[in-house]
């Protein structure tokens, strides 16, 4: 007996819609087994992960706060992936955006700089993220260097650069030698939406980004070009679409969004620049993009779901001493199931019995 794939005549749209749900279901089954192996009560653990964070307002706000960078980065990545450009280095673009934006915050610290500071930080962060993303894009287009490897190498470089700044020139002199800048001034801080809460302006920006991407992909020629270049490169060539130009464009947009997410995170929930500002947002956003089927609305939902796993993971650690790495394992398994279920959109699984295959005389 052998499992074989048979190509469907056309994509199955039903499965395209339900496949993320099947993937989540399978992941939860797998997690139940993993919790049992770890010697934790699976029901309590699942409750801590998926239900408990939804029951109080603080956690709900926290989920939105965590989802904000994930959604912003994933929207950019989805444009790249749709155009068949593999930006894997969003984590680095996020960090560089955070660094570039923080530069203004650090330089204006303690001066009477006005309300222009925060918008300027946003613009600079987005520009820096875009420029940083353009390095692998240009290396790809001009020299044919794999954008996967170059964009990823630049993550480590960005990480070390940030580390250098906060341990060296930007270190807070009153920070007891901790590698961090001083707390940003109020003019350099993302305003909160609810007094005394955690929800901040960044979440609104993320929603605007989702809306903009939906319009771009659904209503404009550029969006159509991006989708055609990715889905049918030959057809795109005949249509006169320039694939290289789209690699540059999608990388730049993706980098700008990741950079913006970086400064929103630093000037928002974190409040100052320090190492470890990202628990791997740039990588988790890859999962968000795929789980959301590279669709803006889907990405919004997927971002909230992945944020739930972060918050749930923290709560499960506090309540049940479940290691934080379980969240990463969970996210990895989820991505596997998402990809596996995607296979069902294009292929039908069939069980074949070898003796029949021989009888047919093919091979």
């Amino acid at each position: 007996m052998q499992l074989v794939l048979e190509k469907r005549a056309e994509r199955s749209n039903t499965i395209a819609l339900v496949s993320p749900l099947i993937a989540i279901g399978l992941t939860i089954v797998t997690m139940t087994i993993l919790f049992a192996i770890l010697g934790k009560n699976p029901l309590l653990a699942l409750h801590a992960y998926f239900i408990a964070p939804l029951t109080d307002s603080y956690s709900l706000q926290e989920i939105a706060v965590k989802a904000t960078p994930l959604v912003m980065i994933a929207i950019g990545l989805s444009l790249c992936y749709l155009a068949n450009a593999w930006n894997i280095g969003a984590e680095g673009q996020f960090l560089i955006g955070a660094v570039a934006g923080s530069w203004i915050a650090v330089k204006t610290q303690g001066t009477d700089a006005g309300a222009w500071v925060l918008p300027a930080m946003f613009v600079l962060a987005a520009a820096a993220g875009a420029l940083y993303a353009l390095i692998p894009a240009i290396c790809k287009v001009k020299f044919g260097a794999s954008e996967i490897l170059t964009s990823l190498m630049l993550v480590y470089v960005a990480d070390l650069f940030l580390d250098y700044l906060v341990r060296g020139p930007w270190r807070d002199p009153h920070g007891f030698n901790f590698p961090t800048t001083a707390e940003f001034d109020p003019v350099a801080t993302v305003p909160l939406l609810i007094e005394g809460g955690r929800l901040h302006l960044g979440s609104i920006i993320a929603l605007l980004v989702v809306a903009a991407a939906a319009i771009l992909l659904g209503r404009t020629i550029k969006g159509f070009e991006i989708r055609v270049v990715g889905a049918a490169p030959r057809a795109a060539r005949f249509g006169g679409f320039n694939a290289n130009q789209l690699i540059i464009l999608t990388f730049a947009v993706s980098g700008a969004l990741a950079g913006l997410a970086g400064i929103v995170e630093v000037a928002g929930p974190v409040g100052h620049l320090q190492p470890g500002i990202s628990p791997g947002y740039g990588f988790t956003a890859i999962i968000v993009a795929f789980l959301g089927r590279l669709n803006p609305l889907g990405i919004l939902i997927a971002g909230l779901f992945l944020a739930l796993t972060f918050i749930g993971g923290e709560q499960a650690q506090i309540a049940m001493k479940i290691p934080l790495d379980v969240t990463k394992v969970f996210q990895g398994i989820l991505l596997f199931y998402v990809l596996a279920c995607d296979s069902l959109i294009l292929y039908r699984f069939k069980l074949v019995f070898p003796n029949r295959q021989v009888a047919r005389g093919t091979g």
Partner: protein
Amino acid sequence: MELVEAIILAVLAASTPLLIAATGELVTERAGVLNLGVEGMMIVGAACGFAGAWLTGSIFIGALFGIVAGMLMSLIFALMALGLAVNQVATGLALTILGVGLSGLIGAGFVGERITPAVHLYIPGLTDIPLIGRVLFGEDAFVYFSLALIVGVWWFLYRTRPGLILRACGDNHVSAHALGYPVLRIRTFAVMFGGACAGLAGAYLPLAYTPFFIPGMTAGRGWIALALVVFSSWRPGRLVVGAYLFGAVTILQLHAQGWGVGIPSQFMSALPYLATVIVLVLLSRARTGGSTAPAALGTVFVPDR
């Protein structure tokens, strides 16, 4: 003189995990499969390798644990990318994300523990020869194994029939299939070989390079190994040169700090990653007359019965 010897020894040690992991990936890619999960397989190999050695007190069993862990990880990849025809780039990334999590989970109980690292060869007389003695006759078993491995792979790929068939699968899976070769089975074996090598390369880090385990200790070496395969133009001979060059860059970075070069340590630490980018650009640029990559690399193959 002693400094030169020390540097050569350090370069060999730093190059060995790169060489082992890249050798595995070379075979995988020669069969036409792009497995970007090397970093994930390596880091799980590091955690399992340390766990095995710590529990049994044997470096050898630790290395076996690393190999098996890497192979199990690669089987997940094979199931997805070959069995279910899922995009290889995305699957490889998923493998790395999963590996980082699993490694943290497995290794959590071992952080702070120490083991006795792999012993170095000592032949009285030979090892005592100045300069070359310790370099040639004073390494740990992993270093010698890595060299035997790459020679073995070269011989297999270019001097045996199965090696020829494996390369055929990587260059034209449709023709290989038409000739009756089981393309998917051959690719699965190639992926598993790559997994075993990555697992061993990861295990090398806590078993021989440093005697302890820390989360994230592979620090991108898996990705550098992937770049090395491109650097080598998919040829074993060049792979050895590339691995030692990169090992040298890594060590240069450590020694430059010791020599008091007035450059912040983070800039020196960024060197191997920057070198990777530059090397990728230069090589891809030199290769304007067509790529030397296996022609079917990274493409999905669903046998048409």
